[in-house]
């Protein structure tokens, strides 16, 4: 029976969430198209992961090789192109992560296969593979069709599909001999570089004031610093603020930063790119202040103010100050 591949992603001994998310979606597609769901696990000493994957897939293909200890897109590409050529899956799902971004486009190009990246949905409609992607910073969705082919590669945005723990599939484990030729790599993994330890742990804060591009200038920072001080909260931010070095890296919330779950998150001047939203959407209470009423941040916030932040934030500070004084 034809297979549907999901590439397992793991790093430093941990299976990454996107793997189970893709397998949940993959299971639905496999059932619909009467194909067999296969998890592809490349690595070294990955027995524990394999066991977990058997719950979520009909088959776990394992290739074990010391060279696969750390991710190298070049090595992965060699193995996957071999597997796809040999087994001809109907579709291969890969995470749109720093791992998948480095791998999927060159793999698809080598195999001359249709590729759709960063998809939030994927479906077989009869003979046609369709995907949904977000464009223009999440303000518009696009439904697109892929050119007809025997097999496709689609990358899936993390945290899009729920990782459901359903009835275990009890998949079989199949070990394949590593097809990696001798050292021909033009890329070599050296080491992981840990982020510097910061002074403040934003993941431990009850109240976070998250700031974004809307702050506009570093000279405007005092108004949000004062709000944070009045509330007894801590400043956090989206990526552009760290890129500009207005706040240190350890204050960044989102995919490339930290995941937070405070009692209160006030998003100020943050439009709400999915990378940021992924990191804060589970906060207990979210209040967003952004002048664009259509900003994606309002899709995760509990309360929103669609107004110029410079009109709102200083006033909010004095209102909160007033309430606090009144209580004292």
């Amino acid at each position, binding site marked *: 029976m034809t297979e549907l591949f999901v590439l397992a992603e793991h790093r430093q001994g941990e299976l990454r969430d996107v793997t189970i998310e893709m397998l949940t979606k993959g299971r639905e597609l496999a059932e619909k198209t009467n194909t067999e769901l296969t998890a592809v696990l490349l690595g070294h000493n990955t027995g524990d992961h394999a066991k977990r994957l058997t719950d979520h897939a009909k088959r776990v293909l394992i290739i074990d090789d010391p060279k696969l200890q750390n991710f190298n897109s070049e090595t992965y590409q060699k193995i996957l192109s071999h597997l796809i050529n040999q087994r001809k899956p109907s579709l291969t799902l890969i995470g749109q992560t720093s791992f998948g971004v480095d791998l999927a486009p060159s793999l698809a190009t080598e195999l001359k296969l249709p590729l759709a990246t*960063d998809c939030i949905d994927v479906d077989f409609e009869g003979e046609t593979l369709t995907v949904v992607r977000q464009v223009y910073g999440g303000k518009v969705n696009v439904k697109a069709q892929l050119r007809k082919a025997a097999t496709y590669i689609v990358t899936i945005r993390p945290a899009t599909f729920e990782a459901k723990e359903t009835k275990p599939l009890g998949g079989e484990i199949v070990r394949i001999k590593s097809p990696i030729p001798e050292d021909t790599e033009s*890329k070599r993994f050296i080491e992981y*570089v840990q982020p510097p330890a910061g002074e403040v742990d934003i993941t431990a804060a009850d109240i976070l004031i998250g700031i974004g591009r809307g702050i506009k200038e570093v000279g405007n920072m005092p108004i949000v610093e004062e709000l944070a001080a009045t509330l007894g909260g801590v400043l956090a931010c989206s990526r552009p603020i760290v890129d500009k070095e207005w706040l240190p890296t350890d204050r960044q919330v989102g995919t*490339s930063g930290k995941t937070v779950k405070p009692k209160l998150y006030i998003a100020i001047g943050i439009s709400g790119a999915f990378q940021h939203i992924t990191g804060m959407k589970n906060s207990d209470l979210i209040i967003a202040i952004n002048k664009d009423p*259509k900003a994606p941040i309002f899709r995760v916030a509990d309360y929103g*103010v669609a107004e110029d932040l410079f009109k709102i934030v200083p006033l909010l500070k004095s209102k909160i100050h007033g*309430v606090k004084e009144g209580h004292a």
Partner: protein
Amino acid sequence: MDIIVCVKHVPETAEAEITIDSSGKRILTEDLVYDINEWDDYALEEAVQLREKLGGSATAITVGTEETDSTLRKCLARGADKAVRLTDKAFEGSDGYATAKILRNAIKNLPYDLILTGAQAGDDGYAQVGATLAELLGIPHATMVKKIEPAEGYARVNRELEGGLEENLEIKLPALLTIQTGINEPRYVSIMGIRKARSKEIETQGLKELGLREDEVGEAGSWMTVEKMFVPPVEKEAEILKGTPDEVTSKIADILRAKGLI
């Protein structure tokens, strides 16, 4: 070191209102302000800094209509030595794959040690052109790069992973690197730079000069065809607080007090 930097002219949409046009397959672009793609801005700066340090050349290249010249002029003003625009009616509707093929044909005959692109574009966000182009050219690539240290015949680079983690790797040159934001601090354009850029020529190449066929580019040469565009469905929507700034801030203070947060 000869460096090629691929840039894209994109609409600024973070604060703009976006409207889908009557075809349902595109957005209305008349009222949007275009500029160099944010990621490419960092790639350009990195190319110029490497050229300043090591000598050689920095060439900016884009695929687009005459309107993209403002982005190319910006590249020249910021220190690129040369600008090339790949332009043809047939290129319209190209996805990431078709775009990479156009770039490949322009770059394959140029001398280069390094090709830089942005890690992704702010409009369609494929994050695929760089790695696809590298594969088409038969050179290694590394994506989402946050640090480059070139050496003899190779470079040591840091790639951004999730959660603040990075990985350091060694990559043989020539190579293609896709650049993540925050790698450097893009410089402001000097008046001198703008003046100098104005007099420089922008070289253009079309389908024929590039040796491409019509069915290799545009929609015909793409993997993906847009079926429709739509506003994302709302699963949950914030309660928008209405009123004057004075009223809404009072409402927020009330909410926070009711929840015991102040």
